C-alpha cells in the first residue's frame, strides 16, 4: 500500500471516530460526579459491560452471562431470518413470475404489509404464549416482507433484452429461469436479505421484552425494572455491535457474489 493510500485510510479512520469520541467526552462530562444523574457515566457502563462479559467485578446474578444472552438472541435472529428467507424467496419468485400466483396472493400480502410487526406481538403472545416462540415469530415476520418485496421486484424487473439474447443464443424457455431470471435478480434479492437481517435485529429486542428468560432484549427489560441502567446501556451496545458485525459479514458475502454488479462489486 502506498503512503498516500495509507494516509487516506488514517484520515478515514479519524473522521469515522471523531463523532463517537466527541459524544463520549460529552457523555462523560455531563454525567460523572453528579449524584442524581439518570444516565450512568461511560466508565460505569464500561465496567458493567466487562462484568457482564467476563464477570469478576460485581459477581452478581448478571456477571458473565452476556455470552448466554447474546447466543440466545443471535440464534433467534438467524433462525427467524433463515426461516423467513426459506419462505419468502420461493414465494417471491412465484409471485414475480407466475401471473396466477401473483393475482391470487399479491393483494392479500400487500394488505397485510402495512401492519407493523409490533402490532402482531399481542396476537403472537395469544397464539404462541409468552416465551421465545413469540420472539422467533416476530423476527420471522420482520424479515419476511423485505425479502419478499425485493425478490418480487428483482424477478419482475429483468431487462426484456436479456430474454431475447438468451433465446437467440439457444436457451430453452424452461431454462430461462436459471440462466437469466435468477442471476439478473440477484442484486435485488441480496438487498432484500440484507434489509431483512437488519430488521430481524430490530425486532428481536421487542420480541424478547415479553417475558422471555434469556436474550439481550430480556436483560435490557429486566435491568430497567431493577434500575440497573448500566446494564440497559450495555445491552444496547452489544446489540448494536452484533447487528453491525452481522451486516458487515453479509456485505462481504455480497461483494464476492455480486462482483459483476457496478452497485455492489
Amino acid at each position, binding site marked *: 500500500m502506498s503512503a498516500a493510500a495509507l494516509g487516506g485510510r488514517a484520515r478515514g479512520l479519524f473522521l469515522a471516530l471523531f463523532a463517537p469520541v466527541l459524544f463520549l467526552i460529552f457523555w462523560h462530562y455531563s454525567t460523572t460526579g453528579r449524584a442524581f444523574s439518570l444516565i450512568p457515566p461511560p466508565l460505569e457502563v464500561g465496567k458493567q459491560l466487562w462484568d457482564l462479559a467476563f464477570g469478576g467485578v460485581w459477581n452478581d446474578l448478571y456477571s458473565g452471562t452476556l455470552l448466554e444472552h447474546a447466543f440466545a438472541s443471535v440464534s433467534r435472529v438467524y433462525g427467524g431470518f433463515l426461516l423467513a428467507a426459506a419462505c419468502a424467496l420461493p414465494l417471491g419468485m412465484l409471485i414475480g413470475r407466475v401471473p396466477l400466483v401473483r393475482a391470487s396472493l399479491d393483494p392479500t400480502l400487500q394488505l397485510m404489509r402495512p401492519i407493523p410487526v409490533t402490532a402482531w406481538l399481542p396476537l403472537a403472545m395469544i397464539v404462541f404464549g409468552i416465551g421465545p416462540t413469540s420472539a422467533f415469530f416476530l423476527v420471522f415476520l420482520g424479515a419476511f416482507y423485505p425479502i419478499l418485496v425485493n425478490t418480487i421486484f428483482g424477478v419482475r424487473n429483468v431487462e426484456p*433484452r*436479456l430474454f*431475447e*439474447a*438468451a*433465446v*437467440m*443464443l*439457444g*436457451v430453452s424457455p424452461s*431454462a430461462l429461469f436459471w*440462466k*437469466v431470471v435468477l*442471476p*439478473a435478480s*440477484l442484486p435485488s434479492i441480496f438487498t432484500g436479505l440484507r434489509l431483512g437481517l437488519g430488521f430481524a435485529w430490530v425486532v428481536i429486542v421487542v420480541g424478547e421484552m415479553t417475558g422471555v428468560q434469556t436474550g439481550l432484549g430480556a436483560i435490557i427489560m429486566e435491568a430497567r425494572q431493577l434500575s440497573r441502567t448500566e446494564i440497559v446501556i450495555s445491552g444496547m451496545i452489544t446489540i448494536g455491535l452484533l447487528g453491525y458485525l452481522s451486516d458487515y459479514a453479509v456485505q462481504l458475502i455480497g461483494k464476492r457474489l455480486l*462482483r*459483476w*454488479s*457496478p452497485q455492489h*462489486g
Partner: protein
Amino acid sequence: MAEPLNILDITHVTKRFDFQGKQIVALQDASLTIRKGEFVCLIGPSGCGKSTLLRMIGGFETVSEGRLDMWSKQIGKPGPDRGMVFQDYGLFPWLTVAKNVGFGPAARGRPSAEVADTTKRFVDMVGLTRFAEAYPHQLSGGMKQRVAIARVLANEAEVVLMDEPFGALDAMTRENLQTELLEIWERTKLTVIFVTHAIEEAILMADRIVVMSSGPGRIVADERVDIARPRDPTSPEFNALRRRFSAMLGSHH
C-alpha cells in the same frame, strides 16, 4: 424460382401492430431475397420498418401476412442460426467476457473443452484477449459490442442480424468496428443483415443496399454497391453513390 444459394426468402411480408386500439402498418408487402454470404444494409428513416423486418427475421416478431423462409423453411422462434447484435448490446452483466462469448455453446450443451476452445478463438478474433475475465460494466461501448459480435459468431450463427449496432458509439470507435466487422465478414463469409440510418456506413459496408421508406414502412429500392473493397469514402464514385442515396432518402441526410 429459388436459387440454391438463397439463404433468406422474404415474400410479401406485412406487419401490423395494434396501437391504442388502432392498427398500424409497420411494414407493407416487403419482398427480398438474400443470398448466402451477402452483406445487406437496410437503410431508411425511423418508422420505415427496417428494425421490424430484422426482428421478424430474428423470430422476435410474428409475421402478419406473407412468408419468411430460411433455407426454404419457415422461420419460427429465435434461434442460434440467426444471431442478433443489439444496439444496446444485451450482454449478461453477471458473466465475464469469456462466459458471455461461450454462453451459447454452453447453453446448447456442448462439451466444456469445445466451449473453452470456441470461446478463446472468438475472444481473440475480436481483440479482447486481455479482457477475457472482465465484466461488461468494466468495458467501453465499443468493447461491449465486440463481445456481442463474438457471442453470435461463437454460436455458429449463419446469419448475423445487426440492429444499428454502432449507433451508440463515438465516431472513432465506430470506424474501427466497421473495419473489424468487414475483416471478420470476409474471413468467415457469413451472411450479414445490417440496419442503419447512416448512408456512409451503408455504402462502406454493403454488397447491397435496401432503401426503405415510412408511412407505411416499405421497400423502395434495392441496389448493388459495385465499388471495390476496401472502399474509400473520399473517392468520387463513393460520393456519387452518397448523393444518389441522399436524394432517395430525402434532403435531411
